[in-house]
């Protein structure tokens, strides 16, 4: 046991005694030991954004000596105003699992062997050089994460895109946010929501589109319930494929058949037009119509390519298109009663009601993810309910920095911190800030995530550095990609904190400093950037991911581009990075400002945050009267003609059930952190399959029975849950994906949205058998 840990335990022992004495003898004082004054309990509170979902709750982490010992909600943070969820309150326990990686590991004769970290970093650099020499620069790749701190993603992009010159930079946010991005880009020309969480306090109606907020964004959901309680007329409509805690709390729960949200969204627009609820003035001034390709495929084959063709349309054409989507016709494919469609249309259409739509993975993990994002924007644009307090189409994120690091830094194959690689001006700006020759930056995007793992399987990619993510649990159609990664001649580097199934395929494991063990920034769903300082030392040799990248970059000869010193590199990187966004549409707060405040929303112009973009009343970049959708050259938002098309795979005689997958309250993503938090594991120790009571009855299974779930790709045996946390309708089963001992992604399908390349984890066909 080391000295600091021992000292810590003794402090805790003394503190317990002081606390006990204070209860028995009110007013007791121990003058001898000043820092054990009972009011502060010897704890120093420091602010950090929560490590888990994209809500971005402000936490105050209690630090005593060199240990994080307690958490409370940050009352100064407008996101959560002092409240957290069960994960947030226990988040610091993720630092202290006994199986934390403390030393670098290198695979030798099949076994992972402890190695000094500098030696491991030498090996990583050497392998990269060798791979580039033998197979070209496009044979090396990095696969990062929406949990990357902003400097991590920035350093990765600079090294791979700017220095090495390959666009093989992807992040797991491709699996969670890509359709949201393409939705924003096609409808508005700029990424990320126009509104903010304050919309929750202003709206009269909430529609959750396939979004179980009660479990996935609980703090925002509570804010919604509090709004409803104070205002009494507020309504929550849960529009989903399965009945959940959110449906339980909603005023109305409407269930639709998977994939048919496309048809229902169009039917809502049909009703809005038929009833003359269109905000004609808004549409006239601020909207133009577009159509794209149809019958666009599902990407299940290797080398699948798709480029949409944007064509101008008009309102008349749009109206004609909607004739196929009367509520009565749509009822037949969606299972949603026509009267419920009309009810939703009436809520959106009522000029006296402010409406906020929320969505997350239900709409993004969708083979027509871009389309359904477009279609929900269509509804808001038709009635002009956008960019004003309470009127908000709001795309939520699932990771703490999917926005901050992946979308804003642009750690995706086609992106740069500002603009896309295909754009010459964007390449020039990046080359100038990065101090690299502009020719270094390849104008052609390479592989999106699914294709990157296919390329690894095929051998087009030979070296992959994986940071802060666990693809051997999260990739759909997992068996293929695991086999691919294990092939001869593949070299996998993993920056991790705990052993996971991805460790099992890694050749080098670099121990990472986690969250408050290093300084960093996250960016949440509402354009808020949040800073945290380093509060406690990382264990053993564990090293910040940014610094790992810097160490390797220098070994590759890029000292000039990575000149920073350990004492100040996070601040220096921030100052370099924000040059990319130095314009009124995206200006970010200074390092000093971020250090002082519980998050700052961009665009941050002249010391003012922007709460509602595109609205000149709130947004300094917006000009003129009413609204200014300045993301598009004509300053107009787009209404897209997008049809309903069926899912890539749907139930048939052989596989008669839909499989839906997702998260639960207690566990975050693959559970590599939350399963090591005692209370979260004790509450939810293993995954299960939720079955509708009718289907369970027909199969002869009861709650707790063992059941085999199989698809054309694989199977998993797990426990049946009937009337448990959620209730799928007849014909559907639901499985949480957090459990590495029950890999449901061996069952899922790797079909994706052809525009966003984001896989659909919510729909494939399975059958159940008793096991």
């Amino acid at each position, binding site marked *: 046991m080391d000295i600091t840990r021992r000292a810590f335990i*003794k402090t805790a*022992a003394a503190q317990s*005694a002081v606390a006990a*004495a204070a209860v028995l003898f009110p007013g007791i004082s121990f003058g001898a030991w000043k820092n054990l004054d009972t009011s502060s309990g010897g704890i120093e509170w420091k602010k950090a954004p929560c490590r888990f979902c994209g809500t971005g709750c402000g936490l105050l982490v209690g630090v005593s000596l060199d240990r994080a010992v307690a958490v409370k909600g940050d009352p100064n943070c407008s996101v959560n105003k002092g409240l957290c969820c069960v994960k947030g309150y226990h988040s610091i326990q993720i630092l202290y699992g006994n199986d934390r990686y403390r030393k670098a590991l290198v695979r030798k004769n099949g076994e992972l062997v402890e190695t000094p970290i500098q030696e491991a970093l030498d090996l990583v650099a050497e392998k990269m050089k060798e791979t580039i020499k033998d197979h070209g620069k496009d044979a090396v790749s990095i696969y990062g994460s929406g949990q990357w701190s902003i400097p991590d993603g920035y350093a990765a992009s600079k090294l791979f895109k700017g220095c090495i010159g390959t666009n093989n930079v992807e992040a797991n946010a491709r699996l969670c946010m890509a359709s949201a991005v393409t939705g924003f880009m096609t409808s508005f020309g700029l990424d990320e929501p126009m509104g903010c969480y304050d919309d929750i306090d202003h709206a009269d109606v909430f529609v959750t589109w396939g979004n179980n907020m009660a479990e996935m964004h609980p703090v925002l959901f509570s804010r919604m319930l509090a709004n409803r309680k104070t205002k009494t007329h507020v309504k929550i409509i849960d529009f989903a494929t399965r009945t959940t805690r959110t449906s339980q709390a909603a005023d109305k729960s409407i269930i639709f058949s998977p994939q048919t949200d496309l048809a229902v969204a169009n039917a809502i627009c049909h009703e809005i037009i038929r009833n003359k609820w269109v905000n004609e003035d808004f549409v006239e001034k601020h909207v133009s119509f577009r159509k794209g390709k149809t019958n666009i495929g599902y990407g299940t084959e290797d080398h699948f390519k798709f480029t949409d063709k944007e064509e101008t349309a008009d309102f008349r054409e749009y109206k004609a298109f909607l004739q196929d989507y009367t509520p009565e016709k749509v009822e037949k494919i969606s299972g949603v009663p026509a009267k419920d469609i009309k009810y939703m249309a009436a809520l959106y259409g009522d000029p006296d009601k402010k409406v906020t739509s929320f969505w997350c993975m239900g709409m993004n993990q969708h083979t027509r993810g871009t389309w359904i994002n477009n279609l929900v924007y269509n509804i808001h644009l038709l009635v002009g309910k956008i960019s004003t307090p309470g009127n908000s189409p709001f795309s939520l994120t699932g990771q703490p920095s999917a926005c901050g690091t992946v979308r804003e830094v642009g750690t995706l194959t086609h992106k740069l911190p500002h603009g896309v690689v295909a754009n010459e001006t964007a390449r020039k700006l990046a080359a100038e800030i990065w101090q690299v020759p502009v020719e270094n930056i390849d104008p052609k995007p390479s592989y999106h995530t699914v294709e990157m793992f296919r390329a690894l399987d095929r051998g087009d990619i030979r070296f992959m550095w994986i940071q802060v993510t666990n693809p051997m649990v999260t990739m759909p159609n997992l068996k293929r990609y695991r086999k691919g990664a294990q092939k001869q001649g593949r070299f996998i580097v993993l920056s991790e904190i705990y052993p996971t199934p991805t460790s099992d395929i890694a050749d080098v494991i670099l121990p990472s400093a986690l969250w408050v063990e290093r300084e960093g920034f996250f960016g949440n769903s509402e354009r808020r950037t949040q800073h945290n300082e380093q509060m406690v030392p990382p264990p053993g040799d564990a090293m910040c991911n940014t610094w790992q990248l810097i160490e390797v970059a220098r070994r590759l000869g890029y000292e000039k581009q990575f000149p920073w010193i350990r004492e100040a590199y996070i601040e220096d990187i921030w100052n370099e990075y924000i040059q990319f966004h130095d314009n009124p549409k995206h200006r970010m707060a200074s390092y000093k400002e971020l250090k002082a405040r519980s998050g700052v929303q961009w665009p941050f112009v002249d010391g003012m945050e922007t709460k509602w973009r595109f609205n000149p009343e709130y947004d300094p970049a917006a000009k003129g009267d009413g609204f200014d959708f300045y993301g598009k050259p004509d300053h107009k938002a787009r209404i897209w003609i997008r049809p309903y098309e069926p899912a890539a795979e749907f139930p048939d005689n052989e596989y008669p059930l839909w499989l839906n997958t997702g998260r639960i309250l207690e566990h975050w993503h693959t559970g590599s952190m939350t399963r090591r938090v005692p209370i979260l594991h004790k509450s939810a120790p293993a995954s299960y399959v939720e079955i509708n009571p009718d289907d369970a009855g027909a199969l002869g299974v009861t709650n707790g029975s063992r059941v085999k779930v199989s698809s054309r790709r694989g199977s998993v045996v797990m426990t049946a849950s009937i009337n448990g946390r959620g209730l799928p309708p007849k014909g559907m089963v639901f499985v949480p994906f957090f459990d590495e001992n029950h890999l449901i992604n061996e069952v899922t399908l790797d079909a994706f949205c052809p525009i966003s390349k984001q896989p659909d984890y919510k729909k494939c066909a399975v059958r159940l058998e008793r096991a």
Partner: protein
Amino acid sequence: MPVFSYLAYPVQGAKEELFNDLSALDYCEAMQAENKEVLILVTDTPDEKTEKALQKQLKTLKSLQSLGMTFGHTDQ
């Protein structure tokens, strides 16, 4: 390496004496309350055997009336 903390109650009027007795023992740290007749004792012994010996020794102290444990930590 066991660590324990206690509230130590002195026999009537022997707070100072108890503080001196406890401070004189190995592996012990004591703190007096300024305004109440109670002390805090933190013990930090290298192993189980020493811990047991220490506990025996504590029982022999004349100035000590009773001990109430408030915290315990052992490595295994």
